[in-house]
């Protein structure tokens, strides 16, 4: 258990460093992949442990809140909602981890865009809406989807995502 938690922490830490420090060194653009999102989806579907995975996604969002300009609690909420959606989709459709992971990352990006749009609307901050819609609902899902495909493609062959009980891909 301790080994698993330590590995999870190292894993999360590694991807946070990639997202916060390494990406900006190489990608000097307002569009960049959201690795935290991919990891949240990975946590949601990697095995059938509901509580552990749910807590992991929530914690991941909470940590992300401290490194973002969004209000505290926003990413904790959005990552937990994404976890619930991912679990629900995983239990209903029998996709391979590669297709499931990529599709879920695209859906999760759209969901997070939707939640942030709802937050802005609540606070009457909707200037620049068109550009935001383009970024959050077109470009970002495509970028995240492409990177998620590579990510799940690599872990698919390492067999790091377990199927639901009683289901076989072959």
């Amino acid at each position, binding site marked *: 258990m301790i080994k698993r938690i330590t590995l999870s922490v190292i894993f999360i830490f590694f991807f946070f*460093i990639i997202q*916060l*420090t390494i990406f900006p060194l190489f990608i*000097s653009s307002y569009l960049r992949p959201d690795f935290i999102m991919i990891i949240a989806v990975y946590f949601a579907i990697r095995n059938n442990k509901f509580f552990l995975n749910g807590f992991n996604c929530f914690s991941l969002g909470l940590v992300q809140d401290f*490194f973002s300009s969004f209000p505290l*609690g926003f990413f904790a909420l959005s990552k937990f909602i994404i976890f619930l959606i991912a679990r629900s989709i995983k239990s209903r459709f029998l996709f391979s981890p590669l297709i499931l992971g990529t599709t879920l990352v695209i859906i999760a990006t759209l969901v997070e865009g939707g939640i942030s749009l709802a937050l*802005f609307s609540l606070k009457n901050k909707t200037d620049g809406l068109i550009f935001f819609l383009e970024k*959050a609902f077109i470009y970002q899902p495509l970028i995240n989807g492409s990177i998620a495909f590579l990510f799940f493609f690599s872990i698919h062959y390492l067999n790091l995502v377990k199927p639901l009980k009683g289901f076989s891909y072959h």
Partner: protein
Amino acid sequence: MKGFYKRLQIYLFIILLFSISLFLLLSNDRTKLDNNPFSSAILELAAPVQNLTAKTFNFFRSIVDNYLLLINIRKENLLLKKRLKELTYENQRLKEMKYTNIRLKKMLDFKQSISFPLLPANVIGMDSSPLGNSIFINKGTAQGVKVGMGVVAPEGVVGYVIRTSRNFSSVIFLTDRSSGVNGLVQRSRAKGVVKGTIAGNYCEVKYLLKEVDVRKGDLMVTSGIGGKFPKGVVIGRVDKIENRPDTLFKMALLTPAVDFYKLEEVFVVLSSMRPDNNTKR
């Protein structure tokens, strides 16, 4: 019965995590710029690693740029290659020194042109979300940085400090939806409020009176009102003007002078005042 308890546990778990995140979201809507000890501790823990990673990657990138690309040459030219390497390295180093010199001179000129005390800082990381608009710098409360202080670059206004720890701080961009700064049109001295948008890459100039003279291409500078920024720092250039008949004011869209995604060094305006508690975020 066992299934009932299992479902109950799941529902309680969902309700608990939803309640925590909603509580955080509602109790912390940043109607005032807070800086709780927990967020400071997280920043202080993670930022040294970010700092180290940024330095290490920059170091390796410079090695790759300067040396590794020259490896693939023929054996009989080893001597020449060695000399070429030396010269290339020397050349790169001199070029880098030249650019550093130009950059530092620009920064020094900028620093001297501003009467406010400025604290130079390096950018060590960016916002965790692509939808967010903030950066992390390697200066914190130990160096005198406080929440609300303005941050500028030689090109113009960057934003202001939203979180601090002992040695690191988080800076929100001027283009963020919650940012705002008093500005004036350099040519006609017309006043307006420059506000960020949810688009995150341009600003809007609000409360420009209909009769004031604003044209496309005009430069907006800080007015000095509010004390966050010195007077006369460039904010950006007017890109588009909207004259709506149903409103009292006209509105302009502004392209910031700073490319936020290419920032390496910034200045914190040390004597800038703490913002009012009602600064809407």
